[in-house]
């Protein structure tokens, strides 16, 4: 038996593994991934092409058609001022996804940096950073974001910034966790004894393996950002009317519950659907990118 034979059989094992257990185990997560991906893709397209898709200007008042139910001219009806609900929903997705994207960028930038330093440097720096993170994690995110927005004022950017900052500790925790796991890997130690510099090790050997968990947490934070923006706007401290935010529309609808069921219904559905899609995508990605599926794969190629 030579090395080469082992190698060939090693490949066969991979092949068999892929075709049977491997694929079937991934089927479930693939379904979540697909459904979530489609929902998120639809919302993303809506957000990008809002001006071309929306039948009306979201701010345009159709005074004669206030509180109209779904009809041929207003597919989802109109609100208390006669604005087209569908158009507001479509532009609302733009707002939600803008907030989500900005908040996630801030949370990832801050969290990845802090988590990487804490996990890689360790010692007292790690202790201090993680103590602070834990303290911040003890507060409900909505409350923290509310406090922040209250102190820096309403608006798309401040709301996004506040939400992003609130989720920095959560990303930092995830990042630190995977750095701690990765730095103990044999090939990281091997890189050290070959004289690689800490930076190179962090970037080349540890960094790539932290991408999957970060992508997963980013998707989930995206969903949470949408909820929090809606909640803040609903509470009247987030975005300012007449911005077509789902949260604002819900808040307005609250006052006209006796006149229109459509006004609260559709923004509610939009929020639920977007969040559901993002969560499905996140969970699907988690299973799909799971490092364990990577290592079982590697372990099964053994001689």
């Amino acid at each position: 038996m030579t090395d080469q034979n082992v190698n060939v059989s090693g490949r066969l094992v991979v092949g068999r593994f892929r075709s049977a257990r491997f694929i079937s185990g991934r089927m479930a997560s693939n379904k979540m991934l697909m459904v979530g991906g489609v929902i998120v893709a639809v919302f993303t397209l809506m957000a990008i092409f809002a001006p071309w898709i929306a039948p009306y200007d979201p701010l345009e008042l159709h005074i004669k058609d206030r509180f109209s139910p779904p009809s041929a001219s207003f597919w989802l009806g109109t609100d208390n001022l006669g604005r087209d609900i569908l158009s507001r929903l479509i532009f609302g997705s733009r707002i939600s996804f803008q907030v989500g994207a900005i908040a996630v960028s801030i949370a990832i930038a801050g969290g990845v940096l802090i988590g990487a330093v804490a996990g890689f440097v360790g010692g007292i720096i790690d202790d201090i950073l993680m103590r602070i993170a834990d303290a911040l994690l003890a507060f409900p995110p909505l409350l923290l974001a509310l406090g922040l927005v209250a102190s820096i004022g309403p608006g798309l950017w401040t709301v996004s910034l506040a939400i992003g900052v609130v989720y920095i500790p959560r990303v930092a925790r995830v990042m630190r966790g995977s750095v701690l796991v990765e730095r103990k890997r044999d090939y990281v130690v091997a890189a050290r004894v070959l004289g690689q510099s800490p930076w190179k090790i962090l970037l080349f050997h540890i960094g790539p393996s932290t991408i999957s968990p970060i992508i997963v947490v980013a998707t989930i934070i995206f969903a949470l950002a949408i909820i929090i923006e809606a909640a803040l706007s609903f509470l009247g401290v987030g975005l300012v009317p007449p911005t077509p935010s789902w949260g604002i529309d819900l808040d307005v609808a609250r006052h006209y519950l006796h006149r229109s069921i459509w006004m609260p219904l559709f923004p509610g559905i939009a929020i639920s659907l977007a969040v559901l899609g993002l969560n499905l995508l996140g969970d699907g990605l988690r299973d799909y990118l799971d490092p364990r599926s990577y290592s079982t794969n590697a372990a099964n190629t053994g001689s």
Partner: protein
Amino acid sequence: MLTVRDLSVEFTTDRGVVTAVDRVSFSVDKGEMLGIVGESGCGKSVLARSIIRILPMPPARIRAGQLTLDGTNLLDLSEREMQKLRGKAVTMIFQEPMTSLNPKFKVGYQIAEVFRKHFGLRSSEAIERSVEMLALVGIPDPEERAKSYPFQLSGGMRQRVIIAMALAGDPQLLLADEPTTALDVTIQAQILDLIREINERSGTSMILITHDLGVIAELVQRVIVMYAGQIVEMTTTENLFDRPLHPYTVGLRNSIPDIDSPVSKYDGPLNEIAGSVPALDDLPIGCYFQGRCPKRMQVCADRQPVLKEVSPGHHVRCWLND
């Protein structure tokens, strides 16, 4: 070349400070291959890792009267300076070929990294050199193999790649921590041959850690036997097999089948050493081996024997040889 005098490594644990390596002294000459044997937990890996300084500190603490490699005092170096020596002056290979390579990069690229790092070669040149290295460690079709990912290679092939990486920096000292333990027997023999060949051809000094006396018999000239962090016997391979002096060495010796003689020839019972290694935080006063020693005397419980040179180059830590 490498001189170690009174090297100790302590770990601060929840249950107090334990000494994993206890005042170890030895040296390795240029081109020499030194073996270190001993049961699991006796401190072999910690010793090697303390030489190349990759122990986590804290909890580890290294102290030494002397730790010099080619005249450079390793303990005086900053982490930065040490980093320059790693891979070039001293390097290490590990037991697990399956996990010691980064699964995300091609093996040729991983070897090339070492050339880039230590010799400042450009990428194309570095890749060329890594193909040469693959050929040197006996990998067929190296040009193609350089483009493989680790998962496409067998264990034996991977260990060859790891050896190629270690040799890329042309180190003076190679620490090999059980380099063949994870491989199956035929491949083991091939890798050992390769290690011997490299040692003979490049004159790289090596410290070979193993708990397989068969490996010792095949490869090394001199052996250190460790027990509970201490050297209990240090001598030539010949003496180790023919004239072992420490009861622990005798036990180790008897626990393997005689290599040269046929199995049928009765050469004393094939025995495991009774009992187990005492915990590092619960070591007895006196000799650490007393609890398992068939030749225990009163003095063994009272005072700890010192490592003594009983004949030229033959050191033993045992009251029997006093």
